[in-house]
Each structure stands twice: as C-alpha cells, then as structure tokens.
C-alpha cells in the first residue's frame, strides 16, 4: 500500500496516549500493544506472476486490569473518537470479570530497560527491495526446482514475502518501548510424477530477518526438488518397533511439541505431563534445549517480552534434566514463580507464555554414522497431523521418509504412522548429530530415538 511505514515516535506516542485514555476512563492498570507493518507478497507459478499482494496495517490492543478484573480489546480504527470509546468500553468490560489476585502488570523492578540494539531485528534492505526484485527471486527459486530433474513436472509456485514494521508497548507503570522488525521469506513447492498417477510433492523455504541471511533462492528450489524426488516410489511398510532417525527439521518439530508442555499456562491448568517434574530427568543426557530470545538476527529474538519484561535465555532441558517452565507475569504468580520474560503477545490477545528461538544443543555424531548404525529402522523427513496430547505426552503422527536397511537408506516410505510418548522419545534419544541446522527460529541436529512403533500394513 502506498501509505508510508508509520514512524517510530508516532506508534509509541499513540500507545502511550491510549494508556492515558484508559487511565482517564478509570483503569487502575493497563497496557497497550501496537503493531504496524507493511507486507508485500509475490507468487510466481510456472514462471508467470500469479499473485501480487501489497498492504499495510496498524492496530492496537488494550488490556485493562482494575481490582484484579481483566478485559482485553482491540481495534484498527485509530481515530480519536474510536480510541476514546475503546478505552471507556474496555474499562466497562472489565467489570464482567471477577477479581483475580494474580492478575496485574509486572512488578516495577521487572520492567525492562533493554533496547533492541545489537539484536539485528531490522534490515532496511527489505524496505527498499522492489517488487521486480522479489519476482526475480521467486522465479529463480521455482526455476531451479523445475530444472533440477525432468521428473519434476509441476509446481505450486515460488513465493517471496517481505514484512516490515514496528511493535510498541506502553503500560501504566511508565514502561514505553518500541522496536522495528523485518522479515523475508522465500518458499517453493514442486511435484514429481510417480506411478499410478500419484504425485510426490515437497516444499522448502527460508525465513530470516535480514535479506543477506536468506538462503540462496536457487538452493531453496533445489532442496524442494530433491525432497520431492526422494519420495518417488514411496510405499507403506509393515508394523513394527524400530529405531527412528529424525532429520534436523523433524527434531525441530519434536521440540515444537515439547514447547506446548513447558508453558506456565499448561502448568496451572494441569494440562502438561511435565507438571511436578521440574528438576527431574525427562530425557537422555544428549538432550539439552534452550529457549533463547537474545540471539542476534533470529526470527524469535526480542529485547523484552509482551509485558515489557527483559527477555533472556532460558534452559528448558539440560543433559536430560527438566529445568522448568516458561512464565509470563500471571502464570508465574499463579504458580509461585517469577516471570521468565516469556510473554507472547498479539494485538487481539492478552499475554501468554511462549517460546522465542528454540535451540537443541548440537551433538558430536556424524549424521551418516547415526544412520549407518541402524540395521532396520525409519529415517523421518515428514510428519502430518496434530496427534500429540500435552497432558499425557501421548504422541501419534503420520510419517514419511526412508526405510533404513543395514545402515543404508533403502527405499522411500509413506502413509505410515509413528507413535510413542514424549518422555519415551526424549529418554530414548541415543545419538545427536554434529549437524546443527537453523530454520527460522529453531535450530537442531539429526537425532536418533532408540525405538518407536511404526504402524503400517
């Protein structure tokens, strides 16, 4: 959209202003989270431009806490009349709630003084990039995939998306901060023909805050093509219990499932199998996982969290021992802990504990050797479905990859299911590779789980 990216001072002033409006309307405590961004998206399919999207958005969310009663509202109508009404209505809305002794803003001594300096969250190159440049990159990505092998016969398109904006947070305790952020995303999905009219598809992508960190478009295309070809001739296998090797991206998926279980919100609801296990062993000594918002240039990095509390690295699992949960202010007070500065926040929602960048500590094994040690097992490259129960840790997901025979990837596998429990899986990790791989806000190596149930024929 033609509207310029709203300036830093303007956003922060507006957030502060709404805090004042809410105070005037009778709010005891309040905070305002504002997000302003422009986005631009280009899709190219079979070489032709298929979709161009350009737009800008600016909206804010207001949280009011009065006498322990909480209300949350949001609007994209930023006219003075609308904001005044929003402040008044939100104060009114809070009366519906009942007093909750744990509700409130952070203790004043927890309020952050950190800035985004050094975090490399913003790249001005992304703002100056032209539509033509984005089209060229998306085209190069798709073209490399299509040219990779004659068996690649179709494409769902190559895509290049940029986003540039700012978040601002102000509260009635005097915190006021804002920082700009950018992101660039390139992706492609292609298909290879298989027997019986079946198609084997695969997608690959790269997402970074700065353009220079983004993977080479042609390399993204080649990876997608290779992964599609890898699945040609895939078949089901019989049902058995075998070792499962997870490529780095699958290790990231496993960490993502675990992330839902380490939330303070799941803890006080009794909705995590980790309740009561802080300090105990939940995995093999090869498992060390850190949530790290302080890493320069990473998508999940931030100076402070959604409540204005400084964000810092939190070990989640150290050599198999569960270190503890991630908290925002409410869930920390509720469970007798201190906030870990882990509040995630959106315009339309209140704070809730969430992860930033998840890093699974690199191991020492050669990834090829991890496979070479397996006589009969599954090499996992894809999972589908939502089959994970955080309360019990039961895990059951659709899977695809390769069958390993005598230490070699023998043939591609699809339409099977893998199952186990999260604790069984973490405890059964008997190898971790030296191949730490970053993708978006996660990093992980190849790992091997000693035994899981593979269901098939």
């Amino acid at each position: 959209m033609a509207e310029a990216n709203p300036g830093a001072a303007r956003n922060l002033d507006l957030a502060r202003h709404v805090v004042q409006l809410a105070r005037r309307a009778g709010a005891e405590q309040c905070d305002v989270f504002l997000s302003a961004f422009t986005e631009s998206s280009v899709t190219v399919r079979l070489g032709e431009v298929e979709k161009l999207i350009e737009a800008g958005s600016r909206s804010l969310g207001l949280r009011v806490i009065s006498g322990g009663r909480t209300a949350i509202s949001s609007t994209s109508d930023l006219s003075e009349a609308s904001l005044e009404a929003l402040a008044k209505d939100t104060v009114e809305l809070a009366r519906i709630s009942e007093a909750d002794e744990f509700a409130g803003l952070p203790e004043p001594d927890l309020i952050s003084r950190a800035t985004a300096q050094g975090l490399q969250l913003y790249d001005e190159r992304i703002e100056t990039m032209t539509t033509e440049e984005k089209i060229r990159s998306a085209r190069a990505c798709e073209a490399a995939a299509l040219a990779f092998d004659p068996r690649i016969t179709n494409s769902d398109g190559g895509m290049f998306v940029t986003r540039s904006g700012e978040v601002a947070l102000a509260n009635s305790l005097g915190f006021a901060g804002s920082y700009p952020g950018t992101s660039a995303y390139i992706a492609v999905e292609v298909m290879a023909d298989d027997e019986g009219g079946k198609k084997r598809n695969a997608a690959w992508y790269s997402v970074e805050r700065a353009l220079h960190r983004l993977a080479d478009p042609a390399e993204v295309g080649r990876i997608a093509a290779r992964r599609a070809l890898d699945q040609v001739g895939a078949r089901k296998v019989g049902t058995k219990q075998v070792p499962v090797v997870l490529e780095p991206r699958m290790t990231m998926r496993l960490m993502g499932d675990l992330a839902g279980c380490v939330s303070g919100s799941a803890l006080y609801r009794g909705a995590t199998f980790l309740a009561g296990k802080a300090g105990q062993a939940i995995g093999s000594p090869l498992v060390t996982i850190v949530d790290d918002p302080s890493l320069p240039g990473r998508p999940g990095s931030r100076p402070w969290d959604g409540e204005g509390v400084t964000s810092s690295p939190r070990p989640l699992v150290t050599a198999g021992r569960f270190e503890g949960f991630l908290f925002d202010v409410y869930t920390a007070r509720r469970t007798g802990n201190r906030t870990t500065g882990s509040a995630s926040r959106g315009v339309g929602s209140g704070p809730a504990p969430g992860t930033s960048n998840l890093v699974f500590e690199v191991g020492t094994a050669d990834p090829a050797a991890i496979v070479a040690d397996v006589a009969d097992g599954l090499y996992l490259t894809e999972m589908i479905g939502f089959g994970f129960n955080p309360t019990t840790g039961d895990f059951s997901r659709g899977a695809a990859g390769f069958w390993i025979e005598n230490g070699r990837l023998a043939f591609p596998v699809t339409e099977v299911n893998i199952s186990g429990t999260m604790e069984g899986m973490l405890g059964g990790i008997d190898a971790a590779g030296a191949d730490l791989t970053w993708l978006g806000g996660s990093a992980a190596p190849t790992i091997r789980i000693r035994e899981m149930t593979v269901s098939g024929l």
Partner: protein
Amino acid sequence: MPNPSTEAQALFAGRYNIDPAVMSGILSVALSRGGDFAELFFEHRTNGTITWEDQRVKSASRHVAQGVGIRVVKGDAIGYAYTESLDLAAMRRAAETASRISGDPERPRPIDATPSGSVGAYYEAGDPLTARPPAEKVALLERADLAARAYHPSITRVDASVSDELKIILVARSDGKVIGDIQPLIRVNVSALSERDGSRRLARTGGGGRLGMEYFEAVTPEETARDAARQALLQHDAVEAPAGTLPVVLAAGDSGILLHEAIGHGLEADFNRKGTSNYSGRIGELVASPLVTVVDDGTIPNSRGSINIDDEGNETGRTVLIENGILRGYLQDQMSAGHFGVRPTGSGRRETFKDYIMPRMTNTLMLAGQESPEDIIRGVDRGIYCISFSGGQVNISNGDFVFSVTEAYMIENGRLTAPIRDVNLIGNGPDVLSKVSRVGSDYRLSDGRWTCGKDGQSVPVGVGLPTVLISGITVGGTSVG
C-alpha cells in the same frame, strides 16, 4: 423480514458513506490499467469472548475490525491490496496498488455498481449473541462449570468460554453486482480435567453455529460440559491403542472430518486447475466405493459452515462431489469456474478482508445408507470404533491424510470393549474411500466446532457422516501384535 444484503449495504452507506457511486469509482480505479475483473470486499467484524476459569470469569474481550480488500484479476494473475481505513483516499490508493497486476496504459473504465436482489436466508442475525448482555453469557458458563463438576468428584478443573462474532460483508464487483450478508457465529468451549491416582486426563468439547441464544435451548451448556467430563474420566481407563491395519467403524457426526481430509480438500478447484491434486483430471471416474455419495452443502440452516453468499458474492449451494463413488465435480470459486467453463459453486471464501479468495468447503457430508449402525459394529471381529476427533490434515498432492481420534473403543467380537488412548489414523484418500464397505442409516451433522485451515486462512466449516465401516485403515497405536 429485512434482507441481510440490504441491511449490509445500508450499514456501509450509513457509517462509511460507501454507496454505489463510491464503489463504482473505486472499481474504475482498480480496472484502470486493463484488468479483466475487479472486486471490493468490505468487512465489518465484531467479536468477543468471555473466558471462565477457577469457577469465575477470568477475562472478557471485545474486538472490532473493518476494512476493504481489493482484488484485480488479469488472466490467471491476481493483484491484491487491502486497507483498514475506509476513507476514499485510502481506498483509491489500495485500488491503484491492486490495479498494477495489469500493465496496460492507464485509462479509466466506467463501472456501474448496482445493488442486486436478496440473498438466501440459511441463518438470521435478528438477535445476535453479540448484542446480548454479558450476564446472560456468564450464566451459561456457570451452568457448564457446575454440570462438569457434578458429573464426577474427580473433575478438578473446568475451563470454559463463549465467543460470538457478527460479520457484515459487502461485495461490489466490476460486473456491476453489489451484494452483502450479515453472518452471526457463536461458539462454546468446555474443557474438563479429571485427576485420579496422580494421573491427569483432559478432554475438550464444544459446539455452536450461525445463530443466537436459541442454540443453548437445543444443546444445553450442561450437556456440553458433561460430555467433556465423561470423556476426561474415560481416558483413565483407556488402554494402549493397537498398531497396524484394522477395520475401523466411524460413528455418525464428527467422523465427517474423514471426508473433509480424505476428499474435500483434494476437490477444491484451485488444486485441480493447477493439476496439483491427486484428484486432478478424474471427473467421471470411480474414486470411492459405490456406497459413497458426498456433497458440500452451504445451505444447511444455522450450521457453522453455512453461508448465504460466498465472499465473492456468489450464491451458495449444494454441490455433489461424489455420487455413488463417481467423481462429479469440484468446489469452484469465480476464477477456477472460468478456467473449467462451469458455474461457480459459491465456494469462494476468505478469512478476512486482508486475505485472498480460495475455493473452500462449507458443510461437507456423506449421505445416509441403508444399514443399522448396531449391525455394522456387530460385523467386526477386531477393530476400533471412533467417536470424537481433535483434528486432521491432508497432503493434497499424494492424498495421504491423517485424523486424530480422542474418543475411541476396541471392537472385539462385534462388541465395544475398552476405551483406547489418543490415536492417529492414517490413510490415502481414494484408497480409504474405496474401502467404505458399509454405510449406516443414521446420518448426523457434527455440532459446530470445526475450523478449516488452508494457506494460513481459517474459515468455519461443518462436517457430517452416517456410521461407516472402513474395511482397513492404518491405526497408529503403540500396541503391536
């Protein structure tokens, strides 16, 4: 009865001065560089949620969003822009941005936007929940809480919420059509935690639809809550699920998620236009057992997936996808319908004005068969019986799909025995549908709790199924042998 289309037009005209002349002017700008087709999608959405925890209201929220999405089509290419500001200058800028998909020299094109007739009335927004006093909604949550706790002393925690949304849309197109709708949507969620002998089990239930307070007369908060409590309690006694290929009986209702994943997505015409679906080019072929007839029906009164018009302003309808096993048609939006030379099926949907149109499902159903559900179960020696599900996913290109089962039982010698733990089912669309070997007479629509995600856009949908036997599908449990 006032018509929702007229009411939506009056709202945008009254509040934002968006009348036919303004719409014509913006459409003119959108087509000024030679696009084939342009459309404006105005949206005003209000929604709110009341959240209940620890036997009290934890928080209340209310959100308002408005804006316009502007699409320009040139051949197979789309230019899209949106703005939250509904003032003329901002809308003209967005139209100008979208127009650039076409590279012709600038030349104004006159458009005559003309309000067209009324729309269907598969739901009404006469008395939306959005307008009801909060105390009425709080009372529902309290009733749910009491009922879940009263169900069994092991229920130690009840979380509940009630959400309402009122979405007013207005579509103006370069072919002159102007049409709108008012879409109410409510949703109640209850989760119950059962603690016994140091183990915790959690279950979630919910429902809703496009209606108001009358929903709770048909489905009381007590029923919803007791069902959550019952399912949580049941899980304590659940045994390990079997692993391997087994006969599976799907209970009527919620199991319709099978159709949504196994075939619904694969029949969305965008995938077929691009040849990326495993159902591409197969119209007229046998793709399922002859017992299978599947329709997508956006006209079911008050159902979560129903729409009076789609988000391109086309009439919604009842589309036969599979008839006695034979593939009959795809779900078409305007663009894919043009490609295939057929009429749009009213399947063009988007999550908000910020999102582009895609062909999507509404309520996807399998029609009833002849058999008694009891007979179907009795005919299975060893298999599983599935009732509730938490979600599903499909790979459109190869047809592999999964769905996650949260309430299921072993079938042994024709009888339901032990409940089993959460388990995933995995299959391949055409393969599983060819294995539908018995179909019950007990068709049922699931309660309104399903949301479909595609390309990051969520839309409310409905599913429905009679009791069905699938002679073999892979059950992803842990118990081997």
